[in-house]
């Protein structure tokens, strides 16, 4: 019987207060890790758990941590709380309902990798949540879970909250580092990767909020248990964020491998009164769109890749038949052209160009060849950019335009 991992106590009054959190068993995992386990053992456990990144890329967390070299340089942990992918709102729930769960994960991660300074890079718009995090952090310091010699283990850790200033691109790990360093949020070339050259050129681990929030559960209940909550190659649950024309939009923590159809029609209550399903974006706006006939699919990393889409941030946007696909495309192209950092020409100019065409079509001045232009330009962006934002823009534009071509052609 699969259990909830992360959201078990959500809804409990004042769960964000450390006393309430501890009453539910909070910080026992940190105690176990710091007092009874060696960093190598923790790393093994996380690797065995097959915990893949919950930010969007899905890279195995344990493998990422193992890339950090042995060095005299200080190492850093950055928790990516930028939550910029449109449609995604799971991390805000975690941080506002159960900030200590995130902190406990941070402590164990830092102890495992040998990190003594951690940053939570939170999107600037989450002001209230940032304050709640800072509250939780001072509670943790008071109780001795942060600061010097945590739990008499000889391990020091300081955690800082850093607010972003309104750029989607700062959710990209290297742009996040640049922003944290006080510079323009321009992504860096990779290689070298942040695990070896990161914050201030030092080795840095960057993980999503949900990813780190799973760590205490893995330590407490073991990797085997964690894998059982999901799939053999994808351990654990996902917090699916369902939005759009469903009866019950919101977050749903379900095992990896749950059917998309079930998520929409069983858990989220199905379509709103009088609305019919037209399309679903399964993993945040960057994920290629699925038509209403394509929703018989398991929500896990590999199944979605096979279907030429992606699990991404597990943000499910449900689109109904009264919504014009042209409007959907407009939102997509406006977003990426606005959020492009501007460093590289394919993304900077390509996204703006496509956006200009789509606006023109929406104003009724579209031409037949515009549809092919959009496809050609989006293909020219894909694979040619400095950072993944280019691909994140090209994929939805291509999938929407290809799968709903007839409807778009009716506008020109």
């Amino acid at each position, binding site marked *: 019987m699969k259990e909830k991992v992360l959201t078990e106590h959500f809804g409990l009054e004042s769960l964000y207060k450390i006393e309430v959190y501890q009453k539910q068993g909070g910080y026992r995992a940190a105690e176990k890790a710091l007092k009874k386990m060696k960093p190598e053992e923790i790393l093994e456990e996380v690797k065995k758990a097959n915990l893949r990144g919950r930010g969007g890329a899905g890279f195995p967390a344990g493998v990422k941590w193992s890339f950090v070299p042995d060095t005299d340089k200080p190492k850093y942990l950055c928790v990516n709380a930028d939550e910029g992918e449109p449609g995604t709102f799971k991390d805000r729930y975690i941080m506002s309902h159960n900030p200590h769960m995130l902190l406990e994960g941070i402590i164990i991660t830092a102890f495992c990798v040998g990190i003594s300074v951690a940053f939570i890079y939170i999107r600037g718009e989450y002001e209230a949540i940032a304050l709640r995090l800072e509250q939780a952090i001072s509670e943790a310091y008071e109780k001795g879970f942060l600061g010097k010699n945590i739990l008499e283990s000889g391990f020091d850790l300081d955690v800082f909250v850093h607010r972003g200033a309104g750029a989607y691109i700062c959710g990209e790990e290297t742009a996040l580092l640049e922003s944290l360093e006080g510079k323009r949020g321009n992504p860096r070339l990779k290689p070298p990767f942040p695990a070896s050259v990161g914050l201030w050129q030092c080795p840095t681990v960057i993980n999503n909020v949900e990813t780190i929030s799973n760590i205490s559960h893995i330590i407490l209940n073991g990797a085997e248990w964690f894998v059982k909550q999901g799939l053999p190659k994808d351990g654990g649950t996902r917090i699916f964020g369902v939005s759009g024309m469903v009866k019950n939009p919101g977050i749903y923590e379900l095992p990896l491998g749950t059917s998309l159809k079930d998520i929409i029609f069983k858990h989220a209550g199905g379509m709103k009164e009088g609305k019919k399903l037209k399309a679903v974006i399964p993993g945040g706006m960057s994920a290629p769109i699925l038509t209403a006939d394509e929703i018989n699919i398991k929500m896990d990393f590999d199944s979605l890749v096979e279907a030429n889409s992606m699990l991404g941030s597990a943000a499910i946007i449900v689109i109904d038949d009264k919504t014009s696909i042209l409007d959907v495309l407009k939102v997509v192209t406006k977003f990426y052209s606005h959020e492009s950092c501007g*460093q590289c*020409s394919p993304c900077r*100019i390509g996204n703006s*160009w496509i956006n*200009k065409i789509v606006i023109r079509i929406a104003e009724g001045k579209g031409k037949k060849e515009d549809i092919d*232009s959009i496809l050609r330009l989006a293909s020219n962006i894909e694979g040619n950019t400095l950072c993944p934002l280019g691909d994140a823009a090209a994929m939805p534009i291509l999938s929407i335009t290809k799968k709903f071509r007839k409807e778009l052609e009716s506008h020109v």
Partner: protein
Amino acid sequence: MIKIFIDEKPVDVEEGTTVLKAAERAGIHIPHLCYHPAFPPEGSCRMCLVEIEGFPKLELACSTVVKEEMKISTKSERVVEARKAVLEFLLAEHPLDCPICDKAGDCKLQDYYDEYGLFESQFKEAKEKREKKLKIGKSLILDQERCILCTRCVRFLKEVTKTQDLGVFHRGVNSSVNIYDGATVENNYTGNLAEICPVGAITDEDFRFKTRSWFLKEGESICPLCSRGCNILIEYHPGFSRFELPKRVYRIKARENPEVNGFWICDRGRYGYSYLDEGRADKIIMNKIEGENVLTWENISEYLGEKIKSLFSAKKTSAIALILHTWLSNEELFLLHKIFKDDLKVEKIFFADLPEGEADGFLLTSEPSPNRRGAQEVGFDLKTLDLDALAGGTDFLLAFDPFLSGLFSTKDLEAALNKIKRKVLFSSYSHELNSLFDIVIPVALIAEKEGSLTNVEGIVQGFQPALEPPGDSLPEWKVLADLGRDLGIDTKFFEKFPSPETILSEMGKKIPFFKQKND
């Protein structure tokens, strides 16, 4: 050394070389815009994408380091498509300014379109509008519409001058390069910005609308305006057959030399080129005719030789005085030393150089002339010119100098020169003070002759003529070599100098310092 394959051609390169540099060494040019050898790779223009076997995506040549057995293709279909795509994006938001843009003919965007593009524009939307004539400091004008955001200018001001005067503002397609709050670019290296800009975004008022780059020819030379000896390119107009142009030289560019000036030149050297064309002397002028024949280049050394010889035979060489300067080449200074110091034992040898200035902590040195070090190494003790010491008991004066008019007042010069019986001036310039001399002989500038200079750090650099000397001007080394021969004191020594190269070679035998010759 490791072996890689570029376009199926095996190439041996050092470990740590990037694909771009390795290709260059193999004679294959990979197009690039944002990369500049002076800075670490930026990777933003995407022009240098190449296909590497085993890599799923196209990779950047500028930043990818080669590995053993790497197989790179710079011409595959994917690469060709990617280049076209990048060019298309860049040109979509680029104004069609070529007919009025100074960079035309010298522009990377044009060159690459010509070679890798050649497609019709599919852009039917309105282009972004920006500032087109922003004065960003000194003589630079920024056109934000032409800018392709390669950020070379931003990086130059960050890495080289460390003044960070330019930055990128706003985001996405609204990105634009600009100055901060009216704080204009004001340092001694601003001219390099117009040079490194691959398109016509940063232009120089000094060159703006003056001529077209395809009219200009290029000659290599060394800047003589301080003792750094920066390597330069002189861009000059060879002239039209039907009408005269106001000048020959339109622009100075930097020439790369890792040992001397790196990739840059300072603004003084870049903009101070009027000395090459303004007020040039081009005829032998005889102000005092003593019933002799007309002087020409054929008989000048004979004439001088005769006059000097007579003083030598009468054991009156103490009546000879020399005014020299340190724009003279190593070879010329060597010949002067040999003739006047060694052979004639002349004591009154003075140097009249421009007064010392201030070094700028980078390239510009405090010495405003190129060869003080050379003069020292040849053996001169660089006595500053004192007019009284000069005039006292002097019957014959040979002055090599264009600076006297700037250093002394007409009254003082006149007073001193009136005491001297015979005075000959070698100068590149026509100046009213020239009338104080009996004979004025026009001479070539460094840009117009062959020779070598020794810079402040002791590096000997050879130079070749980039321009033709105007009118009757000839290089000093030729007069001196002939004079030495005609003097007849050590004829054999002077017989072996048909060229400055031979003089430098002789210097290497006589003076240990000059054994190292370079360039």
